[in-house]
């Protein structure tokens, strides 16, 4: 726990910030989605899958979220749709705008994981 937030959150913050930086850099270069921007979003999706498995293990070993478990997993499933959605978007739309769309994934996930940390530890 750092500043009241767990390592899941901080790992997400690092990965999401990296992904955001890569996508913005590629967008400013005028690049269509490529291995770097798409790859960074796939890393985020993989992270969320690990987080889901990790959460279920944490749920089994501890008392689970102090808030409502349904709300926590609702957030997690919703979060998992976002990188999947922006990635599919980037496959169909091959323009620089699509790279910016990929870049939005990271900031959205940071906000959602912050809220999920609140639900797990404080509510």
């Amino acid at each position: 726990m750092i500043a009241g937030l767990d390592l899941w959150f901080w790992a997400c913050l690092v990965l999401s910030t990296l992904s955001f930086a890569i996508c913005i850099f590629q967008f400013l270069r005028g690049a269509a989605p490529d291995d770097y921007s798409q790859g960074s979003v796939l890393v985020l999706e993989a992270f969320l899958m690990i987080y889901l498995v990790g959460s279920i293990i944490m749920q089994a070993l501890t008392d689970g979220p102090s808030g409502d478990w349904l709300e926590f997993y609702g957030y997690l499933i919703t979060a998992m749709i976002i990188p999947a959605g922006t990635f599919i978007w980037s496959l169909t739309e091959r323009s620089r705008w699509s790279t910016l769309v990929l870049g939005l994934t990271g900031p959205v996930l940071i906000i959602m994981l912050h809220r999920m940390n609140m639900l797990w530890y404080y509510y």
Partner: protein
Amino acid sequence: MEQSSTATLDKKTSGFGRLLVVVYAVFTLSAGARSLYQVIRKFDEAPLSITLSAISALIYLVATIALAKKGEGAWKVSLGAVGIEMAGVILVGIFSYIQPQHFELASVWSHFGSGYGYIPLVLPMVGLWWLLNTRPVWVNA
């Protein structure tokens, strides 16, 4: 008529318009998921804010689809949906300050969307600006 105005209408769904569609899609998803959860778990606590949350999710959905589609009809539906969204965020924002007892649970629009970084307030402004910039040329006008 439909055919001749297609070229100008395409502007709405290209470039920046695509980005707008995605932002609306994210809001549809988050407002929709949140209101679904609230209807399941907390409806009795704050029926008004939860009903408003559900309505706002529906308006985001209509706006997302209309913004993504090409054609004159889609432009009009977009303008209607984004207009209602603008009015909704202002009215709900005002009422949540002067009658806080009716807004125990935060909805997307209460307090002008402060829980969502005021994006719900800025989004319809950007949406209206974009729609008026991509207004279709009326062939018969």
